[in-house]
Each structure stands twice: as structure tokens, then as C-alpha cells.
């Protein structure tokens, strides 16, 4: 049964997603290659923490990728995120995939796939435009 919520990359975004989904009662598993990054998780975090390199498929499989219902990919490296998104979509058929890309050009590389992407650059730019627009009023 697919019921796990996988978070790959425990940076600020990854850790925040893991904390809130864990509070919502989801079955959360966090993967990061740096164990000190797990310090960002709340004390009440009830999921699993796995120290591993997520680009190595044997460690991904040890993190129950095959039973993942949802995966959030937010490592600091766009290329790693791109690879993991393609892998989760093509090989493991994860139903819901959310990925973070710093480079907005990467949106074209996941077109036609059931992958949702977050672009901090575009979000910041849009926010800037609304703030700018507001200041003139």
C-alpha cells in the first residue's frame, strides 16, 4: 500500500514540510546525506530520519520509495532534484511529486510529466511586483 510521505533534502524547506506533514499525522520519512540537518526538525517530529545519499537508488529503496504516496524533493542542487523527480515519476510511479528548482528554465524539463514544481525565483519576483505595485498606491 502506498502511504508514505517522503521528504528528500532536509534544508529549511524540506524540514518545514516534514514538520507540518508529521503534525498532520502523515507517515513521514526524511532523507538527507548530512545528519546534522535533522536538527531543523521539531522535537515533536514523529517520522523516520534516514542519513543517505538519495541519488543512490539502493538507499532510496531502503527509504520505502516503492510505498511512497507523495514525495517532496528539495535538496540544494537542481540537478539532483531533476534526476530524483524523473526517477520518482518514471521508475517508481509515485502518484504525487513536488520538486523545488532554483533555475526557472527547468520547468520545460518536466513538461508532460505529472510533477509539480516550486520556483522560489518566480515567487519572489511576483511578490516583489505586488509589493512594488502596492507602494505606488
Amino acid at each position, binding site marked *: 500500500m502506498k502511504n508514505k510521505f517522503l521528504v528528500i533534502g532536509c534544508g529549511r524547506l524540506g524540514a518545514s514540510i516534514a514538520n507540518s506533514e508529521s503534525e498532520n499525522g502523515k507517515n513521514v520519512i526524511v532523507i538527507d546525506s548530512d545528519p546534522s540537518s535533522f536538527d531543523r526538525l521539531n522535537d515533536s517530529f514523529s517520522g523516520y530520519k534516514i542519513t543517505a545519499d538519495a541519488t543512490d537508488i539502493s538507499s532510496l529503496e531502503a527509504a520505502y520509495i516503492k510505498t511512497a504516496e507523495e514525495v517532496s524533493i528539495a535538496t540544494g542542487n537542481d540537478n539532483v532534484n531533476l534526476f530524483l523527480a524523473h526517477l520518482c515519476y518514471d*521508475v517508481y510511479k509515485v502518484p504525487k511529486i513536488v520538486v523545488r528548482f532554483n*533555475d526557472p*528554465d527547468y520547468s520545460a524539463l518536466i513538461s508532460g510529466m505529472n510533477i509539480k514544481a516550486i520556483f522560489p525565483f518566480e515567487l519572489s519576483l511576483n511578490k516583489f511586483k505586488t509589493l512594488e505595485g502596492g507602494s505606488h498606491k
Partner: protein
Amino acid sequence: MKIVIADGGKTASFIIDMFKSRENELVVINSSHTQAASLMKNEHISVYVGNPWRHYVLEEAGVYGADVFIALCEQDTDNFASCIMAKKLFGVKKCICVVNNPENVDLYKKLGVDSVISSTYLLAQSIKSESSVESLIKTLSIENDKIQVIEAVVLSKYKIANCRIMDIDFPKTASIAAIYRKYQIFIPNGQVTLLPKDTLVIVTTPEHRKDVLDFVQKEK
């Protein structure tokens, strides 16, 4: 042919030497200034400095419609991203990348990279085929061990010696692609008689290799 070579130090230099000719148009991209400078100096070729997984770098370097894209970055995932971008957004016909982790060979192919090369993987395969060299048998693996080409010499004590191919009920899982006889190569048909000292070039799959060899080497 239009060939793009992305990143790589010594390897890039070697490949540039191999393809540098009037027929080939080379586009060289390198993310390191020092490596780019040394390539320019040694190869007398212009090098575009930038990360090959960036859209604007590939665009400005003029990668559109290239025949071959070779990614030689140190990180496997960088190569993956570069190849996917070149293929999806720049209409490159064939993408080749190198990887450090041999597990990535099949994976990257599955995800859309045309050709993936791992030196560890090749080394392991070559050790495997070297160690399985029985007397008079040589094996060559192609397509990452999906096809095997076996070279086997017919001895007079074998059951198949002096028989026509149509009479010996050769395994369906293999085919005699060519026969090497007295310094000449020919493509056989069923009428051909196998003579002692003939070298058979047999094409088969790794699973059927043993059955085929057992059949060929069956003694009278």
C-alpha cells in the same frame, strides 16, 4: 557532424583530438575557467565557459540541432541534467554521458539518455569476459551485455565438423553470422559445410551463451 563536448579535462582533450577535422563542427563548453584556458591553449579551439546544464549556456554556445552531445561532468547528476536539457530543449540527436556509479548506467538509459558509459562497468565486463576465456573461445559483449558475439573454432572431434549447417539443428537462440576460413570471411547459408579449423562468429544473448557453446563443442 556537429559534436558538443561539455566539461571534462584530459578526457575532453582526447575526444577533441579524435574528432578535430574539417567534417566535424566542435562546440566545446567547460564550467571551469582554468580548464577552458588549457583546452584553448592546447587544442587551438574556442571554448565557451559556463555550466552545461544551464539553458542560456547551451543557447549561447549554439547547441541547437547537434548530432552528438557528450557530457563529461564530474557529478553524475550534472551529466544527467545536461543531457536531458540538450535532448528535450535543443533537439540534440544523440546524448552520451559518463557516470561514476555503475548502477546509473541502466537507470539513466531508462530515463532518456541515449548512451551511458561507466568505466567501472566496462572494466567489470571486460574482466568477466577475460576470465571466461576457455580454449579457442573468445567473447565480445555489446549493448551493455545484452548481445554477445562468440568466436569459436571448429575442431575435427566435434560433432558439427564436416556437416552442412542445414543438417545440424543449430540452436534457434543463436545464429552463425560469419565464418573465417583460410584468411577469408564469408556469410554462410544452410548449404555451407563446417570444416575443421573454421572460426565461427556466433551472435547470441548472454543467457543462451552456455547452451550454444555446449552445442558447438559436443564431441562425436
